[in-house]
């Protein structure tokens, strides 16, 4: 019973840390169509397929492309190192926010990495 209090204190601390940390940094994971109607401020993540209109500038450190998901698409602008496998046709997750100009300004760009478990089904 003597340990009930320390255990409660630890549990309360863990709960508090989780609450404050996730309140500050949890981001919405949206589809492109949801992005249009999303009103909260703060960064969001949007997943979609890179279209063929990739334009690189500044020695490949700046890139503009269209991210498409189903029928909706959004222009994305990103500065930084691109993931290795970045190319039209792959799925990326862009993290950032939609600007007033209708362009999604990505702070980070993650490519869905080809894991050792991904298999390309063999088609005959």
């Amino acid at each position, binding site marked *: 019973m003597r340990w009930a209090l320390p255990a409660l204190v630890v549990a309360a601390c863990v709960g508090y840390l989780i609450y404050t940390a996730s309140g500050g*940094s949890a981001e919405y994971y949206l589809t492109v169509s949801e992005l249009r109607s999303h009103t909260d401020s703060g960064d969001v993540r949007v997943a979609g397929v890179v279209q063929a209109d990739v334009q690189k500038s500044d020695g490949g450190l700046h890139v503009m492309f269209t991210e498409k998901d189903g029928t909706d698409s959004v222009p994305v602008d990103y500065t930084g190192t691109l993931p290795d496998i970045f190319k039209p046709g792959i799925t990326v997750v862009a993290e950032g926010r939609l600007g007033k100009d209708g362009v999604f300004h990505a702070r980070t760009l993650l490519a869905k990495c080809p*894991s050792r478990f991904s298999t390309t089904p063999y088609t005959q």
Partner: protein
Amino acid sequence: MILGYIGVGALLAALVLGGFSAVLSFWAGAQENAVMVQVGRRAFYAAAAMIVVAGAVLEWALLSHDFSLAYVTEHTDLSTPTALVAAGFYGGQEGSLLYWALVLGVLGSASLVASASLGVRLAAFATGVMAVILTFFLVVLVLVASPFDLLSITPPDGLGLNPVLRDGGMLIHPPVVLAGFASFAIPFSFAAAALLAGRPDSTWIAHTRRFALIAWSLQTTGLVLGMWWAYHVLGWGGYWGWDPVENVALMPWLATTAYLHSSMVQETRGRLRAWNFSLVIVAFLLVVFGTFIVRSGVVPSVHTFAISAIGPWFLAFLFLCIVFSVVLLAARSNALGGHVEPVALVSREGAFVLQNLLLVGVVVVVLWGTVLPLVSGMFGQQRVVGASYYERAAGPLFLVILALMAAGPLLPWRRAAGRVRGGLRGSPSVRALMWPGATAVIVLAALVVGGVRSMPALLAFPLTGAVAATCFTQYARLGRGWSRMPSLLGRRRRRYGAYLAHLGLAVLVTGIAASHLWQQERDVTLSPGQQVTVAGYTLTYVGSQDRQLADHTELVAAMRLGDATLEPARATYAGLGGQSLTHVAISTTPVADVYVVLVAGNVDGSASFSVFVNPLVSWIWAGGAIIILGVILGNLGESAPALESVRRRVPAAAST
């Protein structure tokens, strides 16, 4: 073609033997029929042998390029180097499940060989539980994810391995991590068997701690190798991204770390029985849960796993395991209680309990972050958390754990408070705490004088210093009794091995904290002859050239750093739709790594780079090696008498 049939046959035989072993072992255990228990155990060995046959067949098919097997076609091709073809065994979903079953069968058999001494019922139930788990994997392997499926037409060549995986890391990281995952089932089986047999005393602890330690060591090695691989191959300058795939490997490791400490309290004081059972069970449940979420695609991850049919199977298995564990613990809760004096707050065991609570707290933090997309998705818009969540929520908990690592080993067992009567300074534990305390103050002062003002740094480095100081004082005490050292070392090997592991962790955490808090990065475009300076390191871009290799072209840039030349490169694989792959160039010193990524080359000869300076990264790898060294020195060839003395020390527990 024929190999496929032999493989399927071996798997079917293993399935029948595994199921037979499970049913017979439970029945014979309940009847206390020693002969039938032995038959059940041998059926388990036979099932393991059949899995070895199936594994050998798959490996043979891979090495002989038998493209009639879909698995061989999908994961290798004729141009893949032989070592990586062999690694194709665990390179895909089906093969990795077979590898898992193989490790479980072989390590499980090893754990059962010595189990007869534990008594008929416990040994029988342990065999039974393990056989059920093995049978589950075999059912999945036979019905939904067979590595021996045949193609109707044999193609002339395979599809090959993704270039990102064509790396030496592929040879060492996945097999170690998967073996770690598989081996958590062994402590679980013995814990469940002890509960089933109604013998929740310490006999199972002495027997299973060794296998828990094997699982823990494999997982430690796997985690560090995974970080090392990600750091050297992926080119984002980091080594840990708090991705669900990483989190699920970390959680069972944390739970088992807690168990390895709390089991000592049970060994020496006969306490925390229910807690120890729970930790071992939770570690295994986290393994099954993790396998389910990363392989079913229910949580968004940067790793795409083939969405396959095994998800629902693992979910059902997870559900079964949870129900079984909860019912079992509830049914035995009376036997787990008992009239034992409570653990004192300020004592060695008190520190262990607090450390355990904090580690479980970290597991909760990581688990919440991992399942948040799933949970929030059920109630509305899907939400995700990034690295900053884990840092803010788990960071403070890790800092308190470090403080406990510094103080805990110096506290006496039972009560510390009683010894303070002769004045605070006279108390051995308070005097012992002086060294780590002084070290922490000196490190803190040095940091403040050096101009460091970041709170995490001002807490983390003094604490890792204190942990190291604690380990050194323990070794110093050993050194004072120099003449007795060999015998002391022999008798307390596990203890001194553990201090070495603590020291390794202090080194590792120092590396993580420094590289994380003080990383510097610059993205630049340079023409030949131009320089860039990052954190005092000046790099000169000399030029770049194209190289044509067998299956890809490579753009190699030359960067001069002092006398050395770094050659970051970017490979392009024409055969794989023009996929490009970066080759990071790293200059390592004990102080810092200079980490250069070639982003792109331009027509005018200029090139773009990302340059990172990562302080103390090499300490992470060194720390990992020291941890494993400590575990090996402390436990390898541990003599049987050591285990005997443990059993003798807990007679009270054994009689309940």
